[in-house]
């Protein structure tokens, strides 16, 4: 931003640089204050830190082996020894949930990464260069959007075959249109901004304009969408595992644990209850955070 103004008008550079610096500083400060002021957003952040902690130190926290079957301990209700009870194979549910947190966070992270990387690339190229690539990519996205929500992911998993990796790929591909459309829209509006036009006029390369001027300025909506998308991806992944298209037994993935607990709902309610609760808390955390970030980044609320 500073560079662009500086190149365009040498005399005013110090003042412009100072102004830009000051604005950036007070803007990020405002955003920070807003994030902290948004209590629900902070709650979301705390939930996430907690989950990350559990996923990172799971093997040391978990009281039991998540895969060890103790047939004499089948169907034990929640107790001091087994806080969340045991399942049909006598495995400790709490320990399985702790280990499964890695899988759920991994599904979220990998799907969002696939969707965001491909989507952002397509959106940037389509928005910046326009032309044939834009036309073709937009028509492809139109077709992808004709498959509602889970349907595209379901179709992809049907082709690739059931496994947790394939679920991540399928959910990731399903979210490409979201990022591509968002970034393309951002690029189209940013392209008309004066600082981008002046950077262009001063002979900056397309690559430089994209990475220095356009991408950083589209980051805030992207972070919001990624945070909300993470929650969605965790839930979609679990839903696919729930119908048997994702993680396979004996994996402690939450969706497949829930699915296994279905048959024992009538008497051993704890087997299906706790994995669902874990999923809900995870998605709740990411949704709260995404909402909080959206409010914090909203330029209308900053002015």
């Amino acid at each position, binding site marked *: 931003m500073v560079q662009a103004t500086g190149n365009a008008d040498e005399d005013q550079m110090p003042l412009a640089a100072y102004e830009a610096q000051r604005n950036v500083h007070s803007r990020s400060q405002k955003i920070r204050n807003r994030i902290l002021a948004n209590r*629900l957003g902070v709650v979301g952040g705390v939930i996430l830190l907690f989950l990350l902690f559990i996923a990172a130190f799971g093997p040391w926290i978990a009281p039991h082996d998540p895969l060890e079957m103790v047939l004499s301990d089948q169907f034990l209700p929640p107790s001091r020894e087994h806080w969340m009870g045991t399942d049909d194979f006598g495995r400790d549910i709490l320990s399985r949930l702790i280990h499964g947190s890695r899988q759920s966070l991994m599904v979220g992270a990998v799907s969002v990464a696939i969707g965001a990387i491909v989507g952002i690339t397509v959106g940037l190229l389509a928005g910046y260069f326009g032309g044939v690539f834009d036309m073709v990519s937009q*028509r*492809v996205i*139109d*077709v992808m959007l*004709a*498959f*509602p*929500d*889970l*349907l595209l992911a*379901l*179709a992809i*998993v*049907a*082709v690739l*075959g059931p496994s947790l990796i394939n679920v991540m790929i399928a959910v990731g591909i399903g979210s490409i249109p979201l990022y591509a459309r968002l970034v393309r829209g951002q690029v189209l509006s940013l392209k008309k901004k004066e600082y981008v036009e002046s950077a262009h006029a001063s002979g900056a390369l397309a690559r430089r304009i994209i990475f220095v001027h356009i991408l950083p300025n589209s980051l805030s909506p992207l972070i919001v969408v990624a945070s909300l998308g993470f*929650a969605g991806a965790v*839930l979609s992944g*679990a*839903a696919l595992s*729930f*119908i*048997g*298209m994702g993680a396979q037994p004996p994996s402690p993935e939450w*969706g497949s644990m*829930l699915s296994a607990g*279905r048959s024992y*709902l*009538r008497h051993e*309610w704890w087997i*299906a*209850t706790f*994995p*669902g*609760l874990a*999923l*809900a808390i995870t*998605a*709740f955390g990411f*949704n*709260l955070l995404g*909402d909080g970030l959206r409010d914090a980044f909203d330029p209308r609320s900053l002015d």
Partner: protein
Amino acid sequence: MFRYFIYRLVATIPVLLGVSVVVFFMLRLVPGDPVRLMFANQASPPPERIEEIRHQLGLDLPIWRQYLDYVTGVLQGDFGLSIRSRQPVFEEIVQRLPNTFRLTSASLAVAVTVGILAGVLSAVYKGRWIDRVSMVVAILGISIPSFWFGLMIMLLFGVRLEWLPVSGATTWEHLVMPAITLGLISSAIIARLTRASMLEALGQDYVRTARAKGLSGRTVIARHALRNAFIPVVTIIGLQIGGLLSGAFIIESVFAYPGVGQLAVTALQARDFPVIQGIVLLVAVIYVGVNLLADLVYGFLDPRIQY
């Protein structure tokens, strides 16, 4: 208006073509031979028998011919035979379609009623307890895995209290729990959008003018703000129908509800590709149609849209 209608109608043709290409290639992209896939659960037939089946199915023709044959077949209601039941796929789907329509319409009714009511109340009483509570509940609504929510209310109202039947689709009571479960996410999404859209409308000059004229608060909200706030809500409702149709895949199998979704999940588990292809194609076409309709209603509601 008429030109807009024609424009939107023409714009869906390439989308539908694209959808048919994707669905057609689903089977071709599966690793392994489609014919062997048909005999996945049985001993492999002799090679000459495989060649014979390939010929019967037209799999020895050039790919573009296969695609053309596929599209012509689909247009005539020929979706092929189910690998599992050897029945025509089209008939299997059509038999179950009314159940799924019933379920999705009931969910849509739940979602629209709850969503719009909660959204309007939250906007009118912004910052008060009703707004805070409904917005936190709305975030919960999009966070709770719907299949788990379904199991939990099944446990409470079906197993413990025995108020409602836990599975099947014979009476309207069978519809209550699946419809609420399926409508949960959509009501949350509609509530959030209605609130935002309503807040924007309430801040507009024409609402201030209406108030200044001395109209009652109720009239201002219903006649001036709500009408304009509805425009984006109509679009999101169109999009939600897609969410409901694909959500039905999971929820129908939770409640053993004999709809298209349950058929799809069974077909997925058995890798019964003709059935999967047929359902994916049908749901996508319905979805494209619903969105076209939503866009037309949008054009009708908002006279500023012109082509």
